């Protein structure tokens, strides 16, 4: 109620600093280009189209969040870009080259951690490096650097099951980044974590992103998370599936949780809410026919 009564700015209004930043981003080279991507399930007789005509450019070191209602195919999009699923049509270009199956140039962080339980934390981070043919010593020293960066050097010899969820996900991030991918795809990476840990992880991710030359595509269903992290927010929808809007986030950087109540943030959030939860004819809530069973003398109404 209060937010609609409050006079909010247009979510497209950008302060000069934010506008300049987007200008700079647009001048950077395009890392990932998606052309007319289409995904449908089933045979040609009765096929269900997940999304269609998805086209977008992601620039170097951009932080993109993809949001949308469940079933809009945001995770499918991530998996197709990573090469784990096949598209039904369209192209994905990484640095101008069409990419097919999975490869180390597109790092992936999954919701379920997917750390290798039989390898120590350090060995997990070394996995990709060794696949690329790096010798043991250089792989080990590189892995140590990455673990240092995510703050887990003390745990390099622990096994994944000895770590908490947040720590596991930090190892997974280090493991993906150690491969020097062109883009890091994160598929609802913090969805399984409790609210407090998720907040911490968002902080860690921001720090890492500032230190490393990495482009991030972050899938989430948490609108606050998207508004807090992203440069641009890709809003996807269902029926028909596809891109609804690609919003430039007006909230200035550096971000902090204090901005959660800033006018730009609220304006953006309101716009996102409109996309994800379209206004429905509000039915008056029916009163439940409840017989009073207690008389504790603490009635609130």
């Amino acid at each position, binding site marked *: 109620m209060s937010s609609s009564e409050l006079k909010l700015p247009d979510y497209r209004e950008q302060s000069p600093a934010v506008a300049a930043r987007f200008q700079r981003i647009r001048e950077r080279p395009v890392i990932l280009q998606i052309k007319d991507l289409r995904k449908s399930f089933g045979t040609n007789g009765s096929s269900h189209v997940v999304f269609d005509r998805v086209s977008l450019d992601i620039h170097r070191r951009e932080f993109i969040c993809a949001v949308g209602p469940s079933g809009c195919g945001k995770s499918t999009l991530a998996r197709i870009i*990573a*090469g*784990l699923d096949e598209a039904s049509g369209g192209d994905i270009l990484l640095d101008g080259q069409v990419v097919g*199956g*999975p*490869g*180390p140039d*597109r*790092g*992936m962080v*999954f919701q*379920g951690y*997917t750390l*290798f*339980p*039989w*390898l120590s934390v350090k060995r997990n981070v070394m*996995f*990709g490096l060794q*696949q*690329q043919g790096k010798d043991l010593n250089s792989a080990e020293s590189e892995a140590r650097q990455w673990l240092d960066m995510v*703050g*887990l050097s*003390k*745990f390099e010899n*622990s*096994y*994944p*099951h*000895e770590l*908490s969820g947040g*720590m596991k996900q930090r190892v997974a991030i280090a*493991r*993906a980044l150690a*491969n020097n991918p062109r883009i890091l795809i994160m598929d609802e990476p913090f969805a399984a974590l409790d609210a407090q840990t998720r907040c*911490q992880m*968002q*902080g860690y991710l*921001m*720090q890492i992103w500032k230190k490393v030359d990495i482009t991030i595509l972050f899938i989430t269903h948490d609108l606050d998370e998207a508004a*807090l992290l992203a440069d641009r927010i890709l809003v996807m929808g269902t029926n028909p599936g596809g891109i609804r809007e690609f919003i430039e986030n007006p909230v200035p950087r*550096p*971000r*902090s*949780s204090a901005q959660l109540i800033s006018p730009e943030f609220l304006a953006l959030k309101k716009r996102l809410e409109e996309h994800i939860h379209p206004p429905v004819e509000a039915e008056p809530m029916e009163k439940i026919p409840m017989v009073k069973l207690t008389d504790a003398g603490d009635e609130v109404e």
Partner: protein
Amino acid sequence: MANHDWLGLKKELPQKRRLLLVGFSFLLPLFLWCAISYIPWLWHPLIHVTDPGSVDYFTEGMNVKVADYDKELAKAKAAGTALPSGYAVNPIYLPPPHKVALAFYTAFKTPPRLPNEPWLHESLGHSIRTIFLGFFFSSLIGVPLGILCGSYRFFAKLQEPFIEFFRYLPAPAFGALCVAILGIDDAPKVAIIFIGTFFQQVLIIGNSVRKVDYALIEAAQTLGAKGWRLVARVTIPASITDIYTDMRILLGWAWTYLIVAEVVGTMSGITFFINQQARYRNFDNVYAAIAMIGIIGLCTDIFLAWLGGILFPWKRKTQRAGKTQPVFPLIKWKILNPTVPAKSGIPLHVV
């Protein structure tokens, strides 16, 4: 802890009670055996004659039915002739526990009756060698084939239907065939254990490998692993603990095929010993030898469980949290308690 219920539905029992119950699981049957053996009025259907008295068909040391003895005793009393005497015993095929316990030692010390017969330790050694060879050859082919079937649908479809069929053919049915092909010595025995193990092995290991979480394979793919390396670096290590457990179970099955295998061709190993001792009516030795098979099997399994804890340190905690309750909690408990490092104290920075 104090409020723990002995019969809590699916509730974990405290360590002490678990150990107590494990002890009881062995003590209860032993107690029953002791009761039947040492309490005369419980069973004891025979009388061991110490003095035949005037009964003409009694001889010293023979066992007669209680009813017959009573009849003869009454007759002798009525006739006023010398009374027979004796004491109640169990049949010879049920020796008391102390005799069997003693047999564990004496069986090794008893020289074989014929010069070409093996000693007990030789028989046991022979059996263990047969099992080992059969299991080794089976694993040599079965494990790689199982991994292939579990990893690639191609091999699964090519191999598994036939193996599924073959697994229903009872291994002992091949006894005569094995002897005809491989002769009467050890080769057919090893072959029977091979047949009994191999087909199960391929299917079970194939299944374990198939259960590997596909997300791990996907993760490895996004890290640049491809083709055969995915199998070598992800599928195999991810399923190795399950394969190890499968092998432990399969080894148990191999033991059950041993007795069948050893009667094929010339009888050999522990089966020969048991048969020979039963023929001499040394039933204490028979029980001891049967128990030895169980003890060897159990000790092997406990050893392998302990070894598994050392080989696969990452499994320790997950196993403890898992559903399978270990047979020997003390041993498992010792290896399943790794030291968990303290939580990190990394300072938290806001965005």
